[in-house]
């Protein structure tokens, strides 16, 4: 896994499976959630946007935690592949955070009556989006890839502090955004025929992440190792 040629060969085998599984989970989850799941007693059909909003928000945050873990491995063990992984994951996490912000806005207009409000949950999520942007900007401003990896790794550890703030914002302060429906301590305040499709969507979104991450990482590996023999062998034949 640590060796680029090995990763390149191994990932070409696993990628189609990730893609197929992602399509299966997402098509079942979205079809079930958007068309079959019951309407909500209060919000009617509008609540169905959560089948996209909730998975994107979860991914936006967990991709950042994944990146911080890559950052830690990159700084402490100097594993090159972890730096490439961090770099490859950043645009995906940023996209999911953007999707969460946009779908949340679209959901807010018909329910709350506003596209945006500066409450703690919304603002902290916007900050996460800016941290992603800063990370990508920092990476591309340093020419030496090893140095860029290290700088971005440290920034990912610094940025990690926003994650608990986002997570707990709805409990610590009064916000317009409602508190979490799913908690570790109590049973979900959503009926099972609504959260079962949501679970499939969340798994589907994770699979999309795994798929796009592998795709980006393969490009990154080829780009960085372009002068090596094993890359030449692949592309000459």
């Amino acid at each position, binding site marked *: 896994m640590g060796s680029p040629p090995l990763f390149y060969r191994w990932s070409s085998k696993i990628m189609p499976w990730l893609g197929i599984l992602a399509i299966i989970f997402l098509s079942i989850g979205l079809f079930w959630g958007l068309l079959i799941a*019951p*309407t*909500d*007693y*209060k*919000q009617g059909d509008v*609540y169905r946007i*959560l089948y996209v909003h909730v998975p994107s928000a979860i991914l936006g945050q967990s991709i950042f935690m994944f990146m911080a873990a890559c950052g*830690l491995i990159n*700084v*402490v*063990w100097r594993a090159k592949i972890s730096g490439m992984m961090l770099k490859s994951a950043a645009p995906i996490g940023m996209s999911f955070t953007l999707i969460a912000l946009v779908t949340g806005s679209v959901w807010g207009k*018909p*329910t*709350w*009556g*506003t596209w945006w*409000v*500066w*409450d*703690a949950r919304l603002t902290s999520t916007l900050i996460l989006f800016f941290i992603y942007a800063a990370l990508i900007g920092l990476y591309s401003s340093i020419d030496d890839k090893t140095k860029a990896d290290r700088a971005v790794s*440290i920034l990912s*550890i*610094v*940025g*990690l*502090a*926003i994650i*608990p*703030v986002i997570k707990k914002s709805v409990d*610590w*302060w*009064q*916000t*317009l955004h*409602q*508190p*979490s*429906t799913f908690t570790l301590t109590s049973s979900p*305040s*959503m*009926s099972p*025929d*609504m959260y079962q499709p949501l679970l499939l969507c969340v798994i589907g979104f994770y699979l999309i992440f795994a798929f796009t991450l592998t795709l980006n990482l393969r490009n990154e590996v080829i780009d960085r190792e372009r002068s090596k023999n094993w890359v030449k062998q692949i592309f000459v034949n």
Partner: protein
Amino acid sequence: MNPLRKQRLYALIAVLIGSLLATWLVVSALSENMNLFYSPSEILKADIDENVLIRAGGMVKQGSIEKSKDSLNVRFTVTDYQNELIINYEGILPDLFDENAGVVVRGNLKTDGSFKAIEVLAKHDENYMPPEVAKLIEANG
């Protein structure tokens, strides 16, 4: 783990602790400014100037909504189950605005103790269920 790696690990942990600490300091310095709105009790306790725009929030009291027949004027009471605030508003209400539902209003506290809102936002809770289940719960009290 060799000493060099251990040293880097400790440095990173220090960075993380520093970052968490800085975030915590910022957040606690902002303290109540992190709240989007005040409850009626907090507003009644404070001495708020008539010209200052504030947000108040709470539950719409049951049976308190009075809608004007020939205009968009509406008057309702917001409660935190301890204190109440009478809100006057002219405009379109969000779909989810209802009795016993959360609401956040923005406007001025008048000297007579009433609240003139220029914006009313509905707050929904974290519960999701089909209408039949909601009816059953209501029927069973």
